């Protein structure tokens, strides 16, 4: 285990954890600021397109967003509940990045996990909650893992790049879900196609609020994934394969096996995200069940610099934005909720163009960990890794 703890010893000036954290978060913080500014500009432009220019509208919009997210105890619980699947989705992308894999298939893994949890949840709805809840959530996690296994195996055995295969699997998952829920899994007696109620398999609400057990699962997995990546042998191997597959092979590790395992783990986390949404929030699944979690997860993982704690913070930010967007839409601001996607894309842009931020503001922030963010394209079109 000692070998696993310090894989990349570099002479680095000793500094406090707080100082390091502040240094690491300068760029993400500025990127968020940049994203909000771009969002404000887009809102101003859209007022110009639809009526008179209103320079104050962005402020009103952001104010109602803040109010919706943090203005009341209810708003805060909404934020936390909305952050939970984003944490899991973000981890599903982040763990992959550590192994040099870019998992943009969280959308499909989320759908499959939701499907598994909804189907099995409806099946065990009558059982005692002590059995029903774990069985249903495990079903979600496993269907997600199976969906993640496919691109992993394809990459390891044939070299098909995961970016294209996971996107294709996203569409296949959506079609598969629509087929099952309008067909074999459709519950009788409803006016629209949906699965049966999950009954006892639903996460019980905690502390008398909307916060459900799935939220605990999500937040609880943050230290677990951190431990797995930085304190376990498996995590060491995953990070080594991500940093340098050749070195990993010479050291006796099996890149193909690790790629499959990592993608399955990513799928498991993505499936859990879907599972907790079904068992904790909606209670059933419709044929056209969709969500923005999949693509938001990519932003969350990159904003959190593929570190579990960073991912948790980024997920809370996006959870707050989602929780607040409702009020922004119905309040006096009347902004389409899609503005969040615009802000999200702008944040991603500033994160990627961090060189520019550094130059413009003349700051010296450290780069992201070397194995992160710069390894993904290496494997494109270059065949199987083994």
């Amino acid at each position, binding site marked *: 285990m000692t070998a696993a703890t310090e894989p990349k010893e570099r002479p680095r000036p000793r500094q406090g954890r707080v100082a390091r954290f502040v240094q690491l978060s300068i760029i993400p913080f500025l990127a968020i600021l940049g994203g909000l500014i771009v969002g404000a500009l*887009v809102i101003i432009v*859209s007022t110009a*397109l*639809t009526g008179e220019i209103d320079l104050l509208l962005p402020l009103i919009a952001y104010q109602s967003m803040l109010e919706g997210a943090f203005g009341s105890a209810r708003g805060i619980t909404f934020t936390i509940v909305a952050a939970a699947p984003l944490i899991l989705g973000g981890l599903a992308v982040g763990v992959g990045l550590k192994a040099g894999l*870019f998992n*943009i298939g969280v959308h499909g893994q989320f759908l499959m996990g939701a499907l598994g949890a909804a189907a099995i949840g409806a099946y065990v709805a009558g059982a005692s909650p002590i059995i029903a809840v774990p069985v249903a959530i495990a079903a979600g996690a496993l269907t997600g893992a199976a969906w993640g296994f496919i691109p992993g195996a*394809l990459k390891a*055995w*044939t*070299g*098909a*790049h995961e*970016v*294209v*295969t996971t*996107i*294709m*699997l*996203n*569409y*296949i998952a959506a*079609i*598969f879900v*629509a*087929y099952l829920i309008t*067909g074999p899994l459709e519950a009788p007696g409803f006016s629209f196609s949906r699965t049966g109620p999950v009954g006892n398999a639903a996460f019980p609400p905690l502390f008398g609020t909307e916060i459900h057990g799935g939220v605990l699962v999500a937040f609880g997995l943050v230290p677990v994934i951190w431990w797995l990546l930085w304190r376990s042998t498996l995590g060491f191997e995953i990070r080594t394969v991500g940093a340098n597959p050749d070195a990993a092979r010479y050291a006796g590790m099996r890149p193909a096996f690790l790629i499959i395992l990592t993608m399955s783990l990513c799928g498991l986390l993505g499936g859990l995200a879907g599972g907790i949404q079904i068992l904790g929030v909606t209670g059933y699944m419709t044929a056209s069940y969709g969500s923005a979690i999949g*693509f938001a997860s*990519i*932003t969350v993982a*990159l904003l959190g610099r593929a570190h579990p704690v960073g991912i948790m913070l980024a997920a809370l930010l996006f959870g707050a934005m989602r929780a607040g967007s409702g009020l922004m839409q119905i309040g006096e601001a009347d902004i*389409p909720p*899609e*503005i*969040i*996607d*615009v*802000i*999200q*894309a*702008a944040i*991603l*842009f500033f994160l*990627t*163009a961090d*060189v*520019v931020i550094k130059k413009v503001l003349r700051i010296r922030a450290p780069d992201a960990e070397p194995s992160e*963010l*710069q*390894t*993904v*394209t*290496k494997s*494109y*079109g*270059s*065949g*199987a890794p083994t």
Partner: protein
Amino acid sequence: MEVVYGIPIIGVLFQFIGYVIEVTPGIAPIVVGLATPIALGALCGVMCERSGIVNIGIEGMMLSGAFVGFLAAGLWAQAFPAEPFGGPFSATPALLIGVVAAIAVAMVLSALHAWLSISIGADQIISGVIINIAALGFTGYFNRLLITPNPRLGAGTFSTFRLPPEVVDIPVIGWILEMFFEQGPISMSVIVFVLLLQVLLFRSRWGLRTRAVGEHPRAADTVGIDVIRLRYRNVIVAGIFAGLAGAYLTLESTGSFQNDMTSGKGFIALAAVIFGRWTPIGAWGGALLFAFSDAFGDAVVIRPPGPEFAQLGPIMEAIPSQVYGALPYIVTIVILAGVVGRSVAPAADGRPYVKEGQT
């Protein structure tokens, strides 16, 4: 044929082949149409990757082109209603403005991708994904804001060219001509672009330089080729194809815009690039194959196998119709898995070039 169809197990395979042959003439013109956005996206991919830049953002460029093209054409038609010009495609000023706008926005996004991946040295796949997410966000936002409250917005579509009936009636040749030329202007232009790019890439000075920059930028640099400039130029020009693909979707095919209407076509185009081994003609072949799997799914639903396909009929009926809807995506994965190992990308694909002494 009845004799062959009777053989157990293999007979079903022959029945399948027979069925494919039977439905193909009916769906061929549709296939060429469906292949258009994929083929144009693939041309964009070929041009970028031959110069060493991976472009995952084709999907987003296409979607933005589709949206902006539709919006520009619709607004122009609203402001200055005009009769179509004469000629076979019933083009209007609004439609032409739309196509230009679609190309322009895709080129701007291409320039952004070029800047991020060439000058900034960002990870090219992440840069491409940003373009996709940004395109989804911006088009979704402005769709809700500008198009949804204005349901009558639109400029129609280009019309399909009609061959004289005497030509269509010629056996075989007439059928092939019908397949490729009973199309709208953008679909027809694909053939020209494919052949042009194929010749330019492998027979011209520009093509040689582009391939050199994609395979071995350092060597290209030593013989005096400006690697950075050539990459910029190629990536930005390649945006034209992605923009045209978008314009096809809203201004030639459907005449309306829906969120995420590209539905993965930009990624299928990437698979077509790999399938075609980074050549324009090969990529076009890949696009036709994917489009065929798409159209075949519809054909099975509309015209299921008749009684002469005794065993095949029940088998194909037993498969839920949604499976046929997923066919293009499944075929993409299968092709990628089967072809990728034997198809070699340009050596410097995806690697940013840093001049010596500038590191």
